[in-house]
């Protein structure tokens, strides 16, 4: 009984000390929290584009509407690519935490290939629209469409470059603490892009072709 009481008192002391000397958070928490704030502000920026698109959805200026332009089969394939690449990115973050070079590079390569496939389909879709005379200057609806979807595409392109950089850095420098932090930021970025794509395919393509 007394032993228990002593142990108890000791524990309480440790906690008390902890509460007093609760110094700055570790660097990985500070870095990732800062990056999380950036991602949220990025989402706020996207929300402005979404608002513009929703407002301008009907303003086709006599030009083609979403229902006439969108090919939902392509959109479904793009969605599958991004979803699977998000999953592969998750596998890469497990491999990074386990410091397993082989599976890290494999998972990152899969992520990269799926991201590039997405970009390839999207690029062809845009080129096809412009060739059919439905470029961004055709109507307010199409301006909003190209701005929103193009901005997401630019983010994916930038993410792909970042992905290749991370593969090279892990290959050259190994799983150092700073490299791990960068990789965790990248993983957050990639998953956040997938969240934005969920909103894009729902609002832009599915709702846009329903109207």
């Amino acid at each position, binding site marked *: 009984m007394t032993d228990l009481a002593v142990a108890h008192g000791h524990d309480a002391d440790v906690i008390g000390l902890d509460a007093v000397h609760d110094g700055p958070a570790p660097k990985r928490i500070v870095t990732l929290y800062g990056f999380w704030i950036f991602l*949220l502000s990025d989402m706020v920026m996207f929300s402005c584009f979404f608002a513009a698109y929703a407002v301008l959805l009907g303003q086709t200026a006599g030009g083609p509407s979403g229902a006439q332009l969108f090919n939902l089969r392509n959109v479904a394939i793009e969605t599958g690519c991004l979803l699977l690449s998000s999953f592969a990115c998750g596998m890469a973050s497990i491999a990074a935490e386990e410091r397993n070079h082989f599976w890290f590079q494999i998972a990152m390569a899969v992520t990269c290939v799926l991201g590039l496939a997405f970009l390839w389909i999207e690029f062809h879709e845009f080129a096809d629209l412009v060739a059919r005379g439905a470029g961004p200057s055709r109507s307010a609806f199409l301006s909003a469409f190209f701005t929103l979807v193009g901005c997401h595409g630019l983010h994916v392109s930038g993410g792909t470059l970042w992905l290749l950089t991370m593969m090279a850095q892990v290959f050259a420098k190994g799983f150092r603490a700073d490299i791990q932090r960068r990789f965790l930021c990248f993983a957050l970025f990639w998953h956040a892009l997938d969240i934005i794509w969920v909103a894009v395919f729902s609002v832009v393509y599915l709702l846009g072709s329903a109207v």
Partner: protein
Amino acid sequence: MSDTHELHQTDLAPGEERGVSVKYRVFGYLIGLGLAVLLTATSFFVAGTDLVWQPSIPVAIIVLAIAQMGVHLVFFLHITTGADNTNNVMALAFGLLIIFLVIGGSLWIMDHLNQNMMPMDQIMQMQR
């Protein structure tokens, strides 16, 4: 006792999971992927079908999209309601507030403007 001790020391960074086995983590991502595929397939199905009451389709698509974003947040970004995640959730809540204000506010204001606007042909006549 040791639990509170742990909580003091280790807040989680966004996207971070700690103290779980590899098998369990892979399983978590698989569940997330399965749910996301299910929700995506449902919303594509709902958009293209005649089986559902037509006016409900936009609402259904938006609800499915919000659900899928929740799945992504929990299973891929590991944003949870745990005590070690409070800061991340608070930041997210603030972001959502701004997003809601921007989108909801724009739609509300622009819809009213549209309704109160004179039809285009009458404006053109006034300019002559």
